[in-house]
């Protein structure tokens, strides 16, 4: 257990063991019995660790996806590009900080990055609105998508949002239309679009920047039509059943990969991305490069068609 990482509830056993091991190790000399105990504890720790991380429930993944120390968009941006020119505003009255975007570079190719961004503390979250974009945020995103289209820049979107903001002003400014228009316009772009769900893929608010040629998901990220809590409240009539809902909804990276929605699951370090941000970013970058290499070989029309066909195929029904 790494120090200064806030443990999740299912990690508590590890935490206890880790403490005991630490205490024993602090002691300058150990009697034989203690040596034996230390070895046992370490074995137990490794076993517990393996058990826990190999048997994470979907809702455990939700907890990891929402971990307050999980890397956010700016962390990825800073790790994968030597520079970042952030571009601001929807041009019509607002710069929504729940969505950030701008120019980065990968292997000498300019890329437009557009991402949802949460804050790490109250002040930051006031600014970022807990990563819940307003219509103006989606309109800023659209402006940047169109900018990328004009200048032949691939687009990478980084997604981690509880969803589009459900507020009075958001409705008055037509949240629905902002999302809908992005869905339509993303579908028509002739540059590569890669979306990476790195935390919570919160319904339409996530999809609004997620109509991509490739959807990549970090191992412990989730993507869902509704939050487990919201689903539980409606279908089970209590938010307490969120864990059941998480399972039923099939929201983990693995689920989405199996359903043919996610194109790749990007591995995370044991315990989750926050245990090793560098490693996570390295995995993300190498995955981006791999997919970009393929997409860069397609021309504009092929890229548009590739993206549209990806979504055209989604859905299960019977006919006859």
């Amino acid at each position, binding site marked *: 257990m790494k120090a200064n990482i806030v443990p999740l509830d299912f990690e508590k056993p590890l935490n206890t063991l880790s403490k005991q091991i630490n205490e024993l190790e602090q002691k300058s000399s150990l009697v034989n019995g203690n040596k034996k105990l230390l070895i046992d504890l370490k074995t137990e720790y490794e076993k517990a660790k393996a058990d826990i991380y190999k048997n994470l429930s979907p809702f455990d993944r939700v907890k990891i996806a929402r971990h307050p120390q999980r890397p956010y968009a700016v962390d990825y941006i800073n790790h994968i590009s030597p520079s970042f020119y952030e571009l601001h505003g929807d041009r019509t009255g607002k710069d929504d900080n729940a969505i950030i975007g701008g120019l980065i570079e990968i292997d000498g190719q300019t890329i437009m990055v557009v991402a949802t961004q949460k804050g790490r503390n109250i002040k930051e979250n006031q600014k970022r609105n807990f990563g819940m974009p307003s219509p103006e945020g989606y309109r800023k995103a659209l402006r940047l998508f169109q900018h990328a289209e004009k200048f032949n820049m691939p687009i990478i979107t980084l997604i981690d949002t509880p969803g*589009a*903001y*459900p*507020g*009075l002003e*958001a*409705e*008055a*400014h*037509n*949240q*629905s*239309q902002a*999302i*809908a*228009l992005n*869905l*339509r*316009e993303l*579908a*028509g772009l002739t540059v590569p679009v890669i979306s990476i769900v790195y935390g919570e893929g919160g*319904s*339409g608010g996530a*999809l*609004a920047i*997620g*109509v991509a040629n490739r959807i990549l998901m970090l191992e412990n990220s989730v*993507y*869902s*039509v*509704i939050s487990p809590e919201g*689903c539980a409240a*409606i*279908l*089970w*009539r209590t938010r307490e059943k969120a864990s*059941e*809902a998480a399972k*039923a*909804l*099939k*929201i983990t990276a693995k*689920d*989405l990969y199996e*359903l043919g*929605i996610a194109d790749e699951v990007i591995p995370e370090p044991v315990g989750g991305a926050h245990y090793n941000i560098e490693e996570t970013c390295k995995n993300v970058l190498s995955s981006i490069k791999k997919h970009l290499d393929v997409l860069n070989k397609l021309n504009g029309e092929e890229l548009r068609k590739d*993206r*549209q066909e990806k*979504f*055209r195929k*989604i*859905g*299960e*029904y*019977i*006919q*006859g």
Partner: protein
Amino acid sequence: MGLKDFFKNRQLKKAAKQQIEMPSIELKSIPSDETLCTLWTKCQSCNQLLYTSELKKELSVCKHCDHHSRLTAMERIEQLVDYGTFIEIDYDVLPTDPLTFSDLKPYKDRLQHAEKSSSAKEAIVTGIGSIDNQPVAIGSMEFQYIGGSMGSVVGEKITRLIEKAIKKRLPLILISSSGGARMHEGILSLMQMAKTSSALKELHDAGLLYISLLTEPTFGGVTASFAMLGDILVAEPKARIGFAGRRVIEETIRQKLPKDFQTAEYLLLNGQIDMVVHRKELKKVFSDLVRLHTQNDKKFFFNDELVLNVKDTPLLAKV
């Protein structure tokens, strides 16, 4: 002649008066027993008792308070397209249970129950019809079927309808009434938003007209995808339309919302829709809009083969 037959006849006669040159063949959507046996209907808004038959004649608009009561998907279509011209397509695209989803009740059971209670096979009916002799591709949502929620079938049927509109170069009309995406199909439901919007991009680039009619209620993933992408957005009076539900918003912002919040009139005032149209004006407005958007286009011509080309004709229709 039993009571049922009596009413059937009565309804036919009423309908006949409404429709010029309506041939005396059977109504396509046969009213359910329940409807037939209900002489009176209580207005949901003003509580006045109304003759059911008279109410139908008035397009289900209350003559006392002008309340636009809910229509079935087929009633919508019958009110809008020329009598006997509607040909349903993709009626055989049916729901399945891709996630083997179960909450307090299995999704499979919900589907069965929905079919029984709504007399519909899914939450949308799509097809081709004509409005004042102008052919259109038209889809109409069925709120009675799991709250008009959009799952794979709704997404697929809308997408196919759009594809047909593109192929035949037809104006598209979609009538929404939905609580949003269908949870029971999880991420597949969400992705129908992208699928339908992507198809609409092609329609848009093909220069074709799309009129979206928003009816009580239209929310969530439906509003946030195809329903808001019309070239012209029309709503029925007082219809509630929005992204998030009123309660969710009140819980989030912890304040009371204005009374008219998310009504059609509120949306008009806030620049979100083009017009609020009374149900009795709808057909004329749609007819005019289709004409106004097609008469300049020299490439546009009436496709005589149109109806014959439609392979899948589920109902005996006047062709």
